[in-house]
């Protein structure tokens, strides 16, 4: 128990950081599901592509010698914007080419198409990275790598201090800005309302002169841009990226979306933070709790056990809307 408490500040710092990443990626799954009732399994790869686009932009700026004259904050903003714009457009393109022609087909067909898109993105990114750098595992430049110390032991002597990078604060801050911005857009603007209308009743929305295809494209743009932007945050936080980071991270973000109630945006945000903290907690404490029987490397199992438990006992998720409507 003491050991668990000791590491708690570090667990919370790391967990909330990772959770923020899961949360924003989970939004992409949940938005697309909300509107098309289809799991866009390529979303994890869009996150990965964002990480690579951002890193590539940064490396390019560096080799062109621009980075020395540029404030780090501006460089950060530029690579985020580049990655979000390109993954947003990528999302629109994927929807147009791989999903829209299948919209009237059974959902399984679109799902297979999504898996195909995933492999395609992995291989394209791997191919390009290999050609440009000679290796598909790429280490970028860290813009805010300074180490900070959170004096948690000062608050209570049972706590250890927690360590973090300046970038950790940026990850959380940017994620919060993205989530608040999205929440405002969806709940307070005309196009956001149209998005919810299309999600609830596509046919009737078109009777209101809402161009459904446009709304779906917009949904893909936003969801993918969020995923791609998070990829940049991830690359900056953890340094090294490869074309396969999107798979397991995407699965966990998907778990977060299911936990929060698939289709529910605020639920996805909560689910992401919850899974992130839980994962870090398991990583630090599994061996303590099980007396050494299970090590911290079983952290992923915990996340997926939750997915299974939710699917069995509460398939609509914690904040899912019970499907009950008057006719």
């Amino acid at each position: 128990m003491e050991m668990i408490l000791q590491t708690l500040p570090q667990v919370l710092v790391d967990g909330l950081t990772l959770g923020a990443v899961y949360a924003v990626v989970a939004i992409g799954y949940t938005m697309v599901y909300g509107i098309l009732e289809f799991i866009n399994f390529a979303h994890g790869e869009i996150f990965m592509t964002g990480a690579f686009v951002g890193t590539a932009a940064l490396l390019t700026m560096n080799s062109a010698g621009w980075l020395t004259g540029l404030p780090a904050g501006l460089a950060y903003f530029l690579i985020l914007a580049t990655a979000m714009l390109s993954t947003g457009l990528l999302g629109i393109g994927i929807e147009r080419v791989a999903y829209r022609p299948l919209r009237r087909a059974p959902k399984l067909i679109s799902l297979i198409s999504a898996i195909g898109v995933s492999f395609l993105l992995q291989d394209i990114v791997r191919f390009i990275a290999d050609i440009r750098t000679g290796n598909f595992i790429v280490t970028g430049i860290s813009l805010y790598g300074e180490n900070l110390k959170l004096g948690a032991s000062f608050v209570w002597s049972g706590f250890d201090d927690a360590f973090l990078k300046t970038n950790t604060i940026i990850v959380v801050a940017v994620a919060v800005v993205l989530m608040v911005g999205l929440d405002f857009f969806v709940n307070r603007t005309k196009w956001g309302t149209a998005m919810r209308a299309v999600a609830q009743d596509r046919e009737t929305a078109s009777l209101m002169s809402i161009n459904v295809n446009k709304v779906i494209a917009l949904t893909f743009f936003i969801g993918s841009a969020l995923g791609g932007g998070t990829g940049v945050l991830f690359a900056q936080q953890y340094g090294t990226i490869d074309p396969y980071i999107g798979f397991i991270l995407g699965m966990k973000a998907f778990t977060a979306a299911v936990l929060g109630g698939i289709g529910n945006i605020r639920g996805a945000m909560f689910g992401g933070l919850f899974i992130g903290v839980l994962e870090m907690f398991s990583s630090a404490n599994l061996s303590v709790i099980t007396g050494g029987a299970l090590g911290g490397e079983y952290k992923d199992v915990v996340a997926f056990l939750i997915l299974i438990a939710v699917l069995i006992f509460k398939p609509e998720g914690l904040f899912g809307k019970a499907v009950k409507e008057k006719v």
Partner: protein
Amino acid sequence: MSLLELNGVHAYYGAIEALKGVTLTVEEGEIVSLIGSNGAGKSTTLKAICGQVNTTGTIRFNGTEMSSLPPHQAALEGIAHVPEGRRIFPRLTVKENLEMGAFSVGDKKVIKQRMERVFDHFPRLRERLTQTGGTMSGGEQQMLAIGRAMMMQPRILLLDEPSMGLAPIIVEQIFEIIQQLNREGMTVLLVEQNAFQALQIAHRGYVMQTGEILMEDQAELLLANELVKEAYLA
């Protein structure tokens, strides 16, 4: 030229032919009722007008050929369709539902004005502004659905079974409002199983059976027609 003209319209759901050459017209300022039993193709006719089913034949609205336009275009041309089962957005508030009706309108002031006009007809909706649509009673939902259509300020109102599932007193109210809107200049094409009431408020009527128009006449003549009486008014 009629406001709405359907000429030899066939409609298909996959291989099933739901309309077999429907021809009908609606003149500006009329209430036209389309009656017939379940499955006669009444709803499909309305869907065909809005481009929601595959059709052949010509559908002209205000001189524009509709059948090649995408579904969201119908509203922009001035056709408001209140679908069967009302189909309000269940998890949007009453206000948001109404705003969606005026989706193509950019000017907030115009939206406000139209909303006030809706409240003049349906004071109940003003009290429920922040309630979500799905939590309202059937009658209130029907009022919201018609109000939402009025937000488009359409040239024609297509109503699909507005009386379905409602208490007789509410049905009375709804039909009252349809007549009132018509007196204010709204053209209405009304689809109803409740043939008696639908013909009572209409100028003209069409009787449909298995995808075809069986009869067309002045509403009062249809009401007096022995065949119609026997089949639909008994």
